[in-house]
């Protein structure tokens, strides 16, 4: 029969306004808390993304590695051997793979989260969950792939006896944080925009390709300094957050002779500034996202 205890418990709960956009700061806080409460579901979505991607393929997770390894081969032979970059850069293979690992993390976050809302439209139209979990699940899936790739990178340094055991390793965490913050901020905004304009997912393909070549991944920063003589252009190039993180990662993982490598001054400070700006952008992105998400269900 009617459960009186349930009624009493229910009466004590506060009436909560459903999905109302409150003030900017409190809104963000509330949504963060909602997402945190849903962390178990987030974990399950990440697992679903990863499992579903390679289900029914014989090699499964190996395919995650095929793309970056192929890229590595191409760049190593074409850029390193044929075009002769390897001569100017020590341990060219490690150098390229370090940069690629950082770049792949960024591009997977952005590409994955951009498609995440549209890809989960069936869910979004039928069940209410904080919508941020879908882009965040893509971030999580990208992180898992990154971990595998990073493991291979470390294994390679062991094999080549250039394991990065030095003070430069402190750059690793700030670089990763910068990638995460910018990737998540851009991913959040683009995932929401993609609902309204499907052109977005094609734009990012192009954008990510430009970014690959706009960071010192397959060539060295010194070459850019030599070529780009205009001060403000170099400043733009250098302060691109992805460039900063790639440089940071190389500083951390790639063993080299500091004398023949150029780095921008105060790299750590630049990374920290980029991180703080990125954090502010992320909060802004979340606001944009929550403003746009009200109409998701009807636009999809």
């Amino acid at each position, binding site marked *: 029969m*009617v459960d009186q205890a349930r*009624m009493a418990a229910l009466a004590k709960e506060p009436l909560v306004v*459903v999905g109302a956009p409150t003030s900017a700061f409190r809104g963000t806080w509330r949504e963060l808390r909602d997402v945190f409460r849903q962390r178990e579901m987030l974990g399950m979505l990440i697992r679903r993304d990863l499992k579903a991607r390679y289900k029914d393929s014989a090699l499964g997770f190996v395919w995650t590695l095929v793309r970056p390894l192929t890229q590595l081969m191409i760049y190593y032979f074409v850029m390193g051997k044929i075009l002769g970059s390897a001569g100017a850069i020590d341990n060219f293979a490690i150098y390229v793979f370090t940069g690629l690992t950082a770049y792949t993390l960024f591009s997977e976050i952005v590409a994955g989260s951009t498609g995440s809302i549209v890809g989960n439209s069936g*869910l979004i139209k039928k*069940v*209410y969950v904080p919508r941020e979990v879908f882009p965040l699940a893509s971030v999580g899936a990208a992180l898992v792939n990154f971990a595998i790739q990073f493991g291979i990178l470390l294994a390679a340094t062991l094999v080549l006896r250039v394991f990065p055991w030095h003070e430069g390793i402190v750059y690793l965490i700030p670089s990763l944080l910068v990638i995460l913050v910018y990737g998540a901020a851009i991913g959040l905004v683009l995932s929401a925009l993609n609902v309204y*304009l499907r052109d977005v997912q094609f734009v990012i393909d192009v954008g990510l390709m430009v970014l690959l070549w706009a960071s010192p991944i397959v060539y060295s920063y010194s070459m850019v300094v030599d070529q780009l003589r205009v001060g403000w252009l170099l400043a733009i190039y250098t302060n691109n957050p992805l460039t900063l993180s790639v440089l940071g990662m190389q500083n951390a993982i790639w063993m080299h002779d500091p004398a023949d490598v150029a780095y921008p001054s105060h790299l750590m400070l630049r990374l920290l500034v980029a991180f703080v700006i990125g954090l502010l952008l992320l909060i802004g992105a979340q606001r944009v996202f929550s403003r746009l998400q009200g109409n998701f269900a009807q636009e999809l």
Partner: protein
Amino acid sequence: MAISTPTVPSTPAPAQDRPDVIVIDDVRKRFTVRKDNTIRERIVTLGRAGRKHRQDFWALDGVTTTIRAGSTVGLIGQNGSGKSTLLKAIGGIIQPTSGTVSRRGRLAALLELGAGFHPDLSGRENVFLNASLLGLSRAETEARFDDILAFSGIGDFIDTQVKFYSSGMYVRLAFAVAVHTDPDVLLVDEVLAVGDEAFQRKCLDRIRSFQEQGKTIIIVTHSLSQVQEMCDRVVLLNKGKVLHDGDPIAAVSMFRDVLEERRSGELSADVAVGRGTVLGATVHADGKGPRDGVTPGDDLLVDMEFEHLDGVADWEAAVQINNTAGQVVYGTTTGIMGLHLEPLHGRRKLRLRIADTNFGTGKYFINVSMMDSAGRHLHDLPECDSFEVPSFGDAVGTVYAKPSIEELD
């Protein structure tokens, strides 16, 4: 509807001391229909021209209502009246343009069974994923997993990928997950229309036990008999506005009026109906007064009056008897009786005799229609009269027959 228990829906005892679970305050929702969907088209139609490519309509227009814990509320209305939009606004899936929806307690929305099932994952993995989307933690799901599996009847297929399931298995598993979450408020949207009869019965039984436990259920359905059977309150929506809020029986009959209005509107648009009217009809049992109770064995007499101002050569008269739940319990036309009526011009009175009736206890309504030879309704007069069959105490249902028991061995 497969199931119809003869008992009256038991309205739970005093509801005054129960908390409100959902408060809807002047909710309005505007939908904008755009005809330009790419950047190119948007730029071309920027500014004033763009407004021509937009069309606004209000799916919800000032809906205000409060729902108390433990009640079962039916949302009815014709297609496009805003039922599903209101349900989605309650569920938080869409945000109202203005106004607020507030609620308390855990909510589960069954807007579509198996939403979030991933075809490439196994049934087991999908159960966990779906349950977490409906707000269950992993530990809670694990504790209920055996129950879910038993309820679904999937058996060993639980570790097979969902894409190999038959559609019935898919729905059973999804419903099993949904009913094993323990919500305070359950939103149901036409879910019960899927599945075979046995499955529908299972669903309805579950919903009844939810009602007994004092859970709040908000249900959107087109099945009016389901509404009358299950709901203790009905909200009738029409064009985004609340037309009626309260007693289910009154709501259903109002809804019939709305449908009738629309139908006759459509009819006059595409068929030349002419000016035919059913002027009136009365019913009484042979040898009794107009308001006397009808008992088994009585002959029913339906006196009808028709009029056609333009004259109609080939026409039929039709009589239909409904019970209070709106179900047709009897119907006949002069066409299926094999009669050919004389051409009608002006007025005419006809008497229909229904011999030796055996209606069960309850109230019945008479609907009379005038139709042309193709079966199109020229005019309907719904619920123009009613009669009542008194209670006999030894049987229920729409048909009465004397029951008795004898020992067989």
